[in-house]
């Protein structure tokens, strides 16, 4: 690429012996040297090889590295299933209030009433949003919410003396669904979806045998479609004593429109880092609260935040609890952000979040349907899945399209997910994006479709405007280089 010289340093490569970036007080206590306080055998011989840089080195280095990223604040980020919406700055300010950010997790309940009240109320609000009876805020992310949910189902069956060993999951599911289920000790049985991505009810009816503990499904599904017969599905399951778990990663499509509980689900997790605007931070942290119907409440992870009169407390006396998932009570910093968001939007606001998320996705699908194959005819919900199979025939893959988009100033859609769609391009615009932005993105997609016909080279060359060009994945995996060493 032409363009500005690329910054190619790692912080270790800025290091200079004796340079310092810290400032620590002199010892103000009678200062015995550490080797007089602690037996030598416990002590490290040499100092760890950490960088030696100035504070300014640090600030400039990480400021520069940040500029090698696309983020929602700087680029449209239509990454399907990830709900890359605007992360309000107000949430950040609130999470940084010392009363939350500087609070130790083991203070007495009396000394954390503000935090506990916030958590209690957030749990109540999430329960109302999902039509669930109780919520645990402890799971650190969606996958841990899934684990908690499946473990509760397991504990429930166990408590009823039932031996059920299998969990059914559609082949369109996100990878964490089978992974979490297997981790919970179940055998995962994959259920083939219909060509349109919907559940094959006949197949399901056959599959829900007495040894099936649960059916786990994403609503709307990973094709961005709402399962029209979802209530029949939950009924069929319940009729066979099968619990139904809803992966709530796509909850942002149905806020105030319909509720997992009302659809018949027994368990549902929330991704606060998707629907409720907590930032993704380059991979995390998130928060994955899990909601349940009353029959599963006894099994919630401990402790549970409870209210007694005007006092809030952590209730540890949960004999049937599946136990703990994190050392403490949940990713409270993220809970503060989500709470701030919900209090900002109110019920009507959340409803219009879903309305506009759905409208934006349908708008994009409509504008692109002539140039790309649509996986399933619309209307879709909050996201749409296109297929590049047409382009593939001309040698342009979903990956190629993704890379070309980077050059045109957009992050890429999710690619090759869900697995049931060939050359999948999964696009989630979110309600926070404006029509101008959607139009610019659609124009770029259409341009790429044209280029596929007329000038595929420019696509195969892409990206050329990024700090690096296409990277050698095979080499990375064959000769793993996972840590820096002076030789580099």
């Amino acid at each position, binding site marked *: 690429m032409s363009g500005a010289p690329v910054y190619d340093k790692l912080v270790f490569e800025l290091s200079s012996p004796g340079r310092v970036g810290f400032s620590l007080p002199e010892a103000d206590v009678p200062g015995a040297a550490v080797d007089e306080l602690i037996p030598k055998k416990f002590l490290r011989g040499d100092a760890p090889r950490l960088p030696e840089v100035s504070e300014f080195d640090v600030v400039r280095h990480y400021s520069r590295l940040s500029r090698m990223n696309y983020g929602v604040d700087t680029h449209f980020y239509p990454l399907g299933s990830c709900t890359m919406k605007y992360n309000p700055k107000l949430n950040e300010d609130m999470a940084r209030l010392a009363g939350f950010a500087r609070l130790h997790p083991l203070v007495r309940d009396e000394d954390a009433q503000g935090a506990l009240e916030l958590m209690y109320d957030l749990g109540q609000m999430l329960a109302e949003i999902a039509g669930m009876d109780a919520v645990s805020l402890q799971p650190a992310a969606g996958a841990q919410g899934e684990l908690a949910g499946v473990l509760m189902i397991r504990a429930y069956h166990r408590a009823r003396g039932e031996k059920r060993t299998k969990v059914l999951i559609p082949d369109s599911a996100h990878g964490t669904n089978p992974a979490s289920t297997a981790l919970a000790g179940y055998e995962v049985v994959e259920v083939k979806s219909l060509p349109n991505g919907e559940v094959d009810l006949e197949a399901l009816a056959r599959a829900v045998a007495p040894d099936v503990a649960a059916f786990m499904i994403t609503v709307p599904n990973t094709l961005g479609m709402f399962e029209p017969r979802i209530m029949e599905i939950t009924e069929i399951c319940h009729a066979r004593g099968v619990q139904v778990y809803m992966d709530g990663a796509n909850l942002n499509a149905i806020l105030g429109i319909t509720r997992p509980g009302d659809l018949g689900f027994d368990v549902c997790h929330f991704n606060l880092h998707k629907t409720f605007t907590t930032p993704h931070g380059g991979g995390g942290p998130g928060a994955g609260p899990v909601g349940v119907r009353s029959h599963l409440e006894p099994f919630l992870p401990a402790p549970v935040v409870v209210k007694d009169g005007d006092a809030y407390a952590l209730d540890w006396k949960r004999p049937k609890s599946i136990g703990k998932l994190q050392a403490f009570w949940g990713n409270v910093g*993220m809970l503060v952000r989500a709470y701030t968001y919900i209090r900002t939007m109110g019920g009507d606001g959340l409803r219009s979040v879903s309305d506009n998320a759905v409208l934006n996705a349908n708008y994009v699908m409509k504008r692109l349907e002539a140039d790309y194959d649509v996986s399933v005819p619309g209307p879709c919900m909050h996201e749409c899945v296109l297929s590049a199979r047409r382009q593939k025939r001309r040698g342009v893959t979903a990956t190629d399209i993704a890379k070309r988009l980077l050059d045109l100033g957009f992050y890429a859609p999710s690619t090759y997910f869900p697995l049931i769609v060939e050359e999948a391009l999964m696009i989630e615009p979110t309600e926070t994006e404006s029509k101008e932005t959607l139009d610019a993105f659609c124009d770029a997609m259409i341009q790429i479709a044209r280029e596929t016909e007329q000038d595929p080279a420019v696509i195969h060359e892409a990206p050329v405007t990024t700090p690096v060009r296409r990277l050698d994945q095979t080499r*990375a995996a064959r000769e793993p280089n996972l840590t820096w060493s002076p030789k580099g």
Partner: protein
Amino acid sequence: MASRYIANTPAEQREMLKTVGAASIEDLLVKIPAKARLSRPLALPPALAESDLVRHMRALAARNADADRFVCFMGAGSYDHFVPSPIDHLISRGEFFTAYTPYQPEASQGTLRTIYEYQTMIAELTGMDVANASIYDGASSLAEAALMAHAVTERDEVVLARGVNPLYRRVVTTYCDGPGIRLRDVPAPEGVLDLDAARRLVTGKTAALVVQSPNFYGALEDVAAAAEIAHAAGALLVVVSDPVNLGVLEAPGRLGADIVVGEGQGLGVPMSFGGPNLGVFAARAELVRRIPGRLVGATVDRDGARGFVLTLQTREQHIRRAKATSNICTNVALCALMATIYLSTLGKQGLRRVGELSAAKAHYAAERLTAIPGVSLRFAQPFFKEFVLRLPKPPTSVVARLARRRILPGVPLKTYDRALADSLLVAVTEQRTREEIDAYAGALAEVLK
């Protein structure tokens, strides 16, 4: 009702609906069964304007005993270490803060480079060959280590030293339920691992022996001896270790650890009432293909330029699904970034100073506090920055009375171990001044009078 977080105006909605060919947004929701539709608005508190919401949040925050207003001597897995000012400014850069997992490496080199730096720093501190991009927290990181040991050794028992944080133990229990891994405890009557008991309990069925050092009581464990015991039985040694201590304390890897996990919150991550935290996970090179979570590797681009990518992804859920090494997807990358910036800022000398100051102040505090009649150290073991006091009055009532003086004197241990009903776990970081320690001692002496 216009919201500042929603872009479309009514006019734009109409225009877009026209393009879509729908009369209303309702028309787009046809697939949702009528009887499942919510027939009322969500029963949530009304939307608050920004200024009113700020006022409300300030009021909630004011009802918590935070470490700005209270002097904090609490630890047990979350510590009040100093957070240098650049960290929050840098992690708040939108390009870091609002990016997703770096699935498109060419547009995510910033994040990928910081994770590669993080992996390098953690490997160096723990003395291991490789580290992953992070696990939720120290406890779930330990749980993942137990699962990994189970998978690697194909054995079904994990032996935990009593000195392992009991909160971690609960999480391990939860994670081991599915795979049916049995947990066994090694007692620590003297506050450290009973080596003889360990020898008896670690057998050919043992997947891993888990020790924590400094352990939950603040005492330093003989990790090398534990390693011997584990390896003699063909088991892995898993060490729980707080990386912020490893500027001064020996790297567990050099003492025989096969897997090192721990809580990295001390590395510049705010306490935030217990989360988000930073689960550290490091291991020996031979185990790399069994490691849970994300790994970033160096490679080259088409022009031969250095670049970084997520690698060895066949371990992960999005490829391996039910057979993945872990179910983790979202991790705590931003906390790992905080730690990376923290370790760059403190550097080789700074991290050592943090450890030296914490140790010096902790030992000074232990001396001052045990000088109070009736107060003694519960265990006669070498410790680092945390120690257990035996008190002549119930610790909970002591805590209550010192709270009135804006002192958080420590964590009563009764809830974790009945045998320690008279004990208080006290942590002292480099943040505590002599003045604060003396004030604590003075106040404690008074309430014990």
